[in-house]
């Protein structure tokens, strides 16, 4: 399958890329990992007149730790994050990176591209919305930091202006006694999940001091299940509180029926994922090593 013909451009720096975007106008698209964009172009759902390839820009792939933050270069590949020390330290990042599609896609796909695409079934936006995350947006008039919750506006819609690009993703390291887990249910590795749940807990002994719960693939954007979080906050993680959070999460979901399942099915599914993710997050917060992989039907 061939996409429609397009003009191909390369930038030498992110700054130059932003300037080129401004010049080329609305009909230009950025090419990062290409693992969503290229299939969309082949199916002709997307037919940009100009494709601006970011892959030849030096120094856009990195994972740095400083001042309590982890900084990801926009073109850092999922596979690089999977193998990183940062992911070893923050298990939810490993769950996410290691669970995206398959080896081949993880070798190409990027964290910046995933956020900029804002696919409702994407993994990174769901996971990173349980951590304190800032997306740095670079445009011709400078760089600004946008909180992830404000960055993702709607399905496939972000706060990026047409001459802006993601220049860095900054994630605050969670405090001590924190643990997280990200769990998705998929038909097979290469496909998007049917539903997913990200849970990040901070414990104070047996009591949950803080909780962030985000649901993926069951709304137009990742959904923060605020009532589910409230059901855990200040409570011990017991069967009872977990069930309460699970029920609240089901109610927070807003799934669309599609070939992956009915709305009811997805609602039930996301509740079960939240329940398991809470239990694993709580164990990890206690310092347990829990290996986790997504569930395949």
């Amino acid at each position, binding site marked *: 399958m*061939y996409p429609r013909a397009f003009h191909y451009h390369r930038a030498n720096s992110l700054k130059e890329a932003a300037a080129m975007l401004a010049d080329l106008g609305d009909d230009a698209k950025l090419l990062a990992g290409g693992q969503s964009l290229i299939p969309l172009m082949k199916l002709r759902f997307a037919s940009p007149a100009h494709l601006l390839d970011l892959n030849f820009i030096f120094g856009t792939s990195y994972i740095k730790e400083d001042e309590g933050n982890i900084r990801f270069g926009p073109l850092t590949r999922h596979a690089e994050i999977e193998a990183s020390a940062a992911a070893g330290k923050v298990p939810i990042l490993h769950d996410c990176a290691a669970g995206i599609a*398959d080896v*081949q896609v993880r070798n190409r796909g990027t964290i910046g591209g995933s956020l900029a695409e804002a696919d409702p079934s994407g993994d990174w936006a769901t996971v990173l919305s349980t951590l304190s995350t800032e997306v740095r947006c670079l445009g011709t008039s400078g760089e600004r930091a946008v909180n992830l919750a404000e960055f993702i506006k709607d399905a496939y819609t972000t706060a990026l202006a047409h001459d802006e690009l993601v220049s860095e993703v900054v994630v605050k390291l969670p405090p001590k006694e924190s643990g997280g887990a990200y769990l998705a249910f998929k038909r097979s590795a290469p496909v998007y999940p049917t539903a997913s749940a990200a849970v990040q807990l901070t414990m104070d002994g047996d009591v949950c001091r803080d909780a962030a719960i985000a649901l993926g693939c069951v709304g137009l954007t990742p959904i923060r299940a605020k009532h589910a979080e409230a059901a855990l906050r200040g409570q011990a993680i017991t069967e009872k509180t977990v069930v309460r959070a699970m029920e609240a999460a089901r109610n927070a979901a807003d799934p669309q029926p599609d070939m992956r399942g009915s709305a009811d099915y997805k609602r039930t599914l996301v509740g079960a994922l939240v329940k398991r993710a809470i239990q694993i997050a709580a164990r990890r917060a206690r310092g347990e090593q829990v290996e986790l992989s997504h569930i395949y039907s």
Partner: protein
Amino acid sequence: MPDSIENISIQLKVNGKSYSRIVEPRKLLVEFLREDLDLTGTHVGCDTTYCGACTVLMNGKAVKSCTMFAVQADGADILTVEGLEKNAELHPIQKAFGDCYGLQCGYCTPGLMLSALQLLSQNQQPSEKEMRKAIAGNTCRCTGYQNILKAIQVAAQNMKGA
């Protein structure tokens, strides 16, 4: 459609040999390999980033060549199934796939062998779980995967110390 598309000149290494070619930007890497270089061992299966039949190694990493443009491989080192054998000797992975009946129709085999190669070049003694994870992006509709896993395991043993 934009008019007067400028074709792009690329240089890359495929199976150790250097090539310079001029390509249309929309030409996919798999089609470049098959049509421009006549390396038809790399297959097009689903053409939708699912099946992995088009898997090649780019700078040692497995990629789906149907989900990359040839222009993106400019400057890269590509390995396809044709580059596995050396001096008319099959690669240990190729031998193991044959010995273990790790294939039936063979359509997915080139992609699977390259996924196996990325795994074994990073991990000489993979567990079954690691092997399964490494080939999760390669679909085989014949074998049920059991003999493929056996083949990778045998290849791992034979490649040790090689």
